[in-house]
């Protein structure tokens, strides 16, 4: 057992460094359903099986075709042509990772929706690939009502498409690329002020002076500045420059009057902007505080919202308008003691703030008749540490995207101001779906069909635009191009989408990093992409 664990640690080492052991656990407890084992689907699952998803189930009623064998993720040898696609694909994928449990259902998804729609309720996530519009909408409806996240993925010629449908997806650990530090230099908490006061820069030994953390230096000089400027912090460029000059003058000079080499002061000067970042609550977080789910905490409230509410309470009370202190500081030139003691000041304050938040959590849980153990201290601390980075994503139901009254007309029209925007590719995908509805096939699959289908497809485009009242211009070139594609699924595009979709699936399962919202289009011709909210 222990051996297996270390082996898993080794195997997954490179990804554990991204989402941690708790993220991996979430992945291993997940059960994903893939509808349609087309090339894109196989690629998506491969990228979920390799990192160790708990289980997958493939729903597909097709037999393996010659095209599949030419196109799909390796291993399909000629003899598997006789197998059903679901089974063949399951066996392929199972081989990649024996820790993963693979299942298949040899059934047409429409039939499953007819006979047993609740089949889909058991999954953490359902991914549909190359699915016809009508089935997709039916499935979307079932999943929306069951609150199961739904990811639609398509590869159509040189165009890739993804649509995420999820009622509410909360993210505590969004891992932002460029997070601002939480230093509170504009409004130091009492312990920080005390710590700063304990330093006497003017009377320090030279060695100590050169190894005092820049945060202390800036804090000290800010105190000086505030006394001389009516308690106003440096606000504009001119004042910040003047402040930098003040810092410069603080550098010790040798007997000849030349400034010594004091790298910590250089750091302080470089970091003035960072230091003066106002410690305010990001709008995204304010929005969460104002949300209905935060206002009304019930016994059904997910832990996320209970904690949002607890943090809001904290902000209004102990926090005095600020979020809980994050507790981390960046590395800076300093001797070990000074750095560690400064770090501890922030760390201890963070623990205190988290404890205060915890008391608010407890009182809300009690008020709705739940035990405080429902939400662990660890979770609360993690939440507080990430309080400035919380994200909630809502990706509306397909029925709203498709509804004539609820279509996002403005978004579509304004994007189409540029007729070559990726939006035109979306409109073309909708148009080929119309074509399929009318002709039970996609345009241009066979060479002899291409010419006539261009005319037919153009009619579909017009009727689509008319139905939704979209006054946009779809160039003939795109109609021609989509006929040319003949609904092909080139492997390289399927591979790209397989990677993209798998990563979004991992985000949904681990609740780490932020999923897209809600339509992603990849143009493999121009190698560009765009995200729209439709």
């Amino acid at each position, binding site marked *: 057992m222990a051996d297996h664990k270390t082996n898993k640690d080794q195997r997954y080492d490179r990804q554990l460094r991204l989402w941690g052991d708790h993220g991996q656990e979430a992945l291993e407890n997940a059960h994903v359903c893939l509808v349609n084992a087309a090339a894109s689907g196989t690629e998506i699952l491969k990228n979920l099986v390799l990192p160790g998803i708990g289980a997958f189930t493939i729903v597909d009623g097709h037999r393996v075709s010659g*095209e599949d064998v030419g196109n799909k993720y390796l291993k399909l040898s000629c003899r598997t042509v006789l197998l059903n696609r679901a089974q063949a694909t399951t066996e392929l994928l199972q081989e990649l990772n024996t820790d993963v449990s693979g299942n298949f259902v040899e059934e047409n998804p429409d039939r499953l929706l007819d006979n047993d729609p609740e089949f889909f309720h058991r999954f953490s996530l359902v991914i549909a690939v190359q699915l016809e519009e009508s089935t997709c909408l039916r499935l979307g409806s079932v999943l929306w009502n069951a609150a199961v996240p739904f990811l639609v993925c398509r590869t159509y010629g040189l165009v890739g498409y993804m649509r995420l449908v999820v009622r509410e997806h909360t993210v505590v650990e969004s891992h932002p690329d460029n997070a601002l530090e939480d230093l509170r230099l504009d409004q130091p908490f009492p312990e920080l002020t005390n710590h700063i006061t304990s330093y006497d820069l003017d009377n320090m030994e030279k060695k100590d002076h050169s190894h005092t953390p820049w945060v202390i230096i800036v804090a000290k000089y800010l105190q000086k500045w505030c006394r001389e400027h009516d308690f106003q912090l440096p606000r504009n460029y001119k004042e910040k420059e003047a402040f930098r000059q003040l810092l410069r003058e603080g550098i010790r000079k040798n007997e000849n009057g030349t400034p010594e080499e004091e790298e910590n002061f250089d750091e302080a000067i470089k970091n003035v902007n960072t230091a003066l970042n106002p410690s305010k609550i990001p709008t995204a977080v304010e929005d969460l505080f104002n949300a209905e789910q935060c206002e009304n905490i019930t016994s059904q409230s997910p832990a996320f919202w209970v904690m949002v509410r607890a943090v809001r309470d904290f902000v209004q009370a102990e926090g005095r308008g600020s979020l809980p202190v994050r507790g981390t500081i960046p590395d800076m030139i300093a001797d070990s*003691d000074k750095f560690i003691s400064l770090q501890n000041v922030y760390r201890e304050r963070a623990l205190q703030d988290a404890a205060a938040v915890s008391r608010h959590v407890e009182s809300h849980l009690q008020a709705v008749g739940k035990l405080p153990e429902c939400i662990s201290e660890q979770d609360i601390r993690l939440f507080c540490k990430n309080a400035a980075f919380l994200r909630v994503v809502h990706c509306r139901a397909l029925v709203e995207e498709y509804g004539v009254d609820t279509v996002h007309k403005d978004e579509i029209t304004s994007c189409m101001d540029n007729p070559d925007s990726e939006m035109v590719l979306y409109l073309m995908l909708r148009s080929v779906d119309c074509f399929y509805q009318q002709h039970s096939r996609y345009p241009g699959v066979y060479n002899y069909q291409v010419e006539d289908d261009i005319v037919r497809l153009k009619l579909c485009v017009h009727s689509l635009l008319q139905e939704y009242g979209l006054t946009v211009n779809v160039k003939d070139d795109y109609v021609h191009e989509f006929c040319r594609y003949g609904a092909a699924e080139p492997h390289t*595009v399927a591979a790209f989408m397989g990677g993209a979709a798998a990563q979004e699936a991992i985000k949904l399962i681990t609740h780490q990093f932020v999923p897209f919202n809600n339509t992603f289009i990849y143009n*493999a011709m121009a*190698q560009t992409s765009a995200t729209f909210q439709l």
Partner: protein
Amino acid sequence: SLSLLLFSLFRKKKRRIEELTEKMALDVGSSGDWDGRWRHVQKFLERSGPFTHPDFEPSEETLQFLLETCKILVIGAGGLGCELLKNLALSGFRHIHVVDMDTIDVSNLNRQFLFRSKDVGHPKAEVAADFINSRVPGCHVVPHFKKIQEFDESFYRQFHIIVCGLDSIIARRWMNGMLLSLLVYDDGVLDPSSIIPLIDGGTEGFKGNARVILPGMTACIDCTLELYPPQINFPMCTIASMPRLPEHCIEYARILQWPKENTSIPSLLVLMCLPLYGVALDGDNPEHIHWVFQKSLERAAEFNIIGVTYRLTQGVVKRIIPAVASTNAVIAGTVPSRENTALFAYVPLNNYLVFNDVDGLYTYTFEAERKENCSACSQVPQKLQFPPSAKLQEVLEYLTENASLQMKSPAITATLEGKNKTLYLQTVASIEEKTRPNLCKTLKELGLADGQELAVADVTTPQTVLFKLNFTS
């Protein structure tokens, strides 16, 4: 224009190679194509479209070219390499070579899917080739369990396209330099059929990039060296006396403690005055890592630093870069498309693509521009400006620290009194010892003159780089 040239170079090269391959045709064996096998690919090669190149003529010939003649080299059979090999094989390429000097490790298995647990310890190139060859009928992958530097021009010249999935900037630069050395100029005009396109991809966590390089025509690796900032190492004084982070404690154990405690001096060798030798720290040896971990904990305890873990220790010692299957899949997915833009005949646009899916999905493409005085591809003589009183040490530091050069261990030679003289060379211990005193000498003392040419060799390039020395006052 670029697109015209790209397309015509394939035409010319195709003809040239067809002549050559007549003589060295591989026996691919039976590769009966079943019905529908290439249907997905055929739609793009046999049908014209509104966005294809004006010169593109749809034909069945192109598919034939793909299948029969086109020879591709994949460098690296790791995260990107496995994905690339699969994509190429399933897109119709049949003649593929793959070079990789590594063997398989357990930590590869979360993404390098051509390998299984039983393959751990075996050469990546060979296992990858076996896998593809046994599963994709008609595809013939030739593995090379070697370093790229072990091959010369005659090897690289046989390929139509080279695709890189490397994890080292040095190796990229070397490859870049090799392809530049293959260029043929007739009367100062570049012969397009001597161009071998280089497609280079890289990934790190949730970020990745892919670029197309036409050596001699578009920006090369060295033109955009500033995009790869040099690796930052912690200052020695921090590690030695002022640690603050757990990483500092680990580096202390690795850099200072390990050599001290793992150098043995057999008495006989001392008598023979041979230099000390020691056991090098092996990041893949769990016992070594464990030793470093324990020492790091002790160091951290001394300074009240928290956060030293086994995982962090390994990460710091091996300079581990996090990696997942999905990012590699995405980047590899763009790569054959790029080369296929010529074969699919779309007008290739910007040559550098960047991808990031930390927050939603983000792609950005731009045209990386050639650097006028690029030390690798510009053919403009590189300048070194120093006063005659400057020491050779300063020149060495310039070569390694300058952002556009970033050499690793340059060897400097010059012609003095009609003879080729090595001024300083690091990579051979005996020569290093002999030439070390030159570092403290001034350029004047070494006998160098204004306008003198210095030849510099380095691991970052297969060819020596010529510098012109200008004396400043």
